């Protein structure tokens, strides 16, 4: 693959409600900040990808309403309705296809609509939606399958909530850093068994942007380029009942592609830090298994033996993860940004030592129907 890099990045602080910012404001601010971070000017950006969801924004073709905020005036603007990692994937493909540099920007204000209604609408209107299923209940079905398949417990999942909310104290952009115990998670309100309130990510407002550039443009950017070495993307069945929810098959396939592209044969040894999409506490261990960091069912053990904690050999979600801030669609792009900050050595209080290769991961669709895996490197 030709050399392409992330050369600029920005994220807002994530909050339950940003009463003083429209989503247009948020897009404008992260676009401006990503440009400033990159040292490039708008003249260096020859195309824009916006990431948005019509139901979240409450308007059709929501992407077209933020073009000017995204620096897209008189430029080629295209759109991804899905997680930010998928928007970035499209952006990377465009740079490989001949554009010099792509700005990818994602926004959402979960506070303005009703996320339960919106996630109900992602299900099939004939066979599933009339049953009132939405993202929390579907996630609970997946958590139940995963627990039963491997004999895992609610305590196993609670530990991930404790870890990630604790990590969030080191991340000024996170929404809910918490000092909590496993018992706090277990005794938080039961929502959909086995999921309790503290197993869930919050509803958030926020935005994020990255700039992906070809090698020539990357060399004139202000910051150390973060090279994109591997990307993999795979999707499985739409209907929940067609899938083995406890087997992240699409993720295994996406990870395999990304690792092959990056020349990685032993991901546990060759990747130093990972940011994965943990919308619920059970997801991080399940995705770690799909990424090949442990054997099936072995995710909780990685935490118990300290591998993925802050001081471990493979810290996972040192930012606090999606559990600590979950602007839908934006959260995957934030995983990429956090991985890039680690490679630049700019992750401040959450910086992991000696990072030369990092992984970022995003999901789309119910229960991780599709996955996008990124391998990033510094020089």
């Amino acid at each position: 693959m030709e050399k392409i890099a992330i050369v600029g990045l920005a994220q807002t602080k994530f909050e339950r409600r940003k009463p003083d910012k429209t989503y247009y404001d948020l897009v404008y601010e992260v676009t401006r900040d990503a440009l400033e971070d990159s040292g490039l000017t708008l003249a260096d950006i020859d195309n824009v990808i916006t990431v948005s969801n019509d139901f979240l924004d409450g308007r059709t073709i929501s992407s077209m309403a933020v073009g000017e905020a995204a620096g897209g005036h008189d430029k080629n603007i295209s759109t991804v309705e899905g997680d930010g990692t998928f928007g970035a994937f499209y952006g990377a493909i465009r740079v490989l296809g001949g554009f010099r540099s792509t700005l990818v920007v994602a926004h959402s204000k979960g506070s303005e609509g009703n996320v339960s209604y919106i996630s109900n609408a992602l299900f099939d209107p004939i066979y599933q939606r009339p049953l009132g299923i939405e993202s929390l209940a579907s996630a609970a079905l997946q958590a139940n399958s995963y627990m039963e398949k491997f004999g895992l417990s609610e305590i196993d999942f609670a530990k991930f909530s404790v870890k990630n909310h604790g990590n969030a104290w080191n991340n000024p952009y996170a929404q809910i850093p918490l000092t909590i115990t496993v018992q706090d998670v277990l005794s938080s309100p039961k929502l959909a068994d086995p999921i309790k309130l503290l197993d869930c990510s919050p509803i958030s407002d926020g935005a994020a942007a990255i700039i992906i550039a070809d090698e020539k443009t990357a060399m004139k950017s202000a910051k150390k380029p973060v090279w994109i070495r591997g990307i993999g993307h795979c999707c499985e069945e739409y209907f929940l009942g067609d899938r083995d929810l406890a087997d992240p098959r699409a993720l295994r396939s996406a990870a395999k592609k990304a690792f092959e592209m990056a020349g990685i044969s032993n991901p546990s040894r060759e990747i130093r830090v990972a940011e994965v999409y943990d919308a619920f506490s059970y997801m991080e261990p399940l995705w770690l298994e799909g990424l090949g960091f442990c054997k099936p069912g072995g995710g909780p053990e990685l935490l118990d033996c300290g591998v993925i904690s802050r001081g471990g050999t493979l810290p996972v979600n040192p930012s606090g993860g999606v559990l600590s801030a979950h602007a839908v669609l934006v959260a995957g792009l934030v995983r990429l940004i956090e991985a890039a900050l680690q490679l630049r050595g700019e992750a401040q209080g959450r910086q992991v030592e000696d990072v030369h290769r990092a992984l970022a991961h995003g999901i789309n669709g119910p229960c991780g129907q599709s996955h996008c895996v990124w391998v990033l490197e510094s020089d």
Partner: protein
Amino acid sequence: MDWLVHTEAVTQKGQISLPYRWWVGETGSRFLTALRDEGKILGNRCPSCATVYVPPRKNCGACFREIDDWLELGDEGVVTSHTVIRFPFDLHPAPVPFAYALIRLDGADTAILHVIKENLNSLRNGARVKAVFAEQRCGNILDIEFFRLI
């Protein structure tokens, strides 16, 4: 911003409520009319890999083959995954607590999503359940009112 300290952050209320009338397709029509008129649950079988789908499909995703081999499934099956719902939500089909379950009907290879309303303390994966049909059926998925534990 300073001015916001002294100025109300104005919001505007709105609601999107759009009527739709979805054509459920030939496959869906056959499934839903059998459910409504005969109280039967139909599935269909891929001619290549023999996977039996419910709800039935136009084509097999894995084989990309059109499916026209229909069969009647049992109204009983086994729970493959479940969750007891305790949070309230306007669109729920029953007051909480109730359960969602993925149910693999006898004769099918995929599981169907539905609800279980009774005996939640006895609900386990592997439990056998039976469909309870609505008395007044109108050709939608809620013509199966719920599943009950056997």
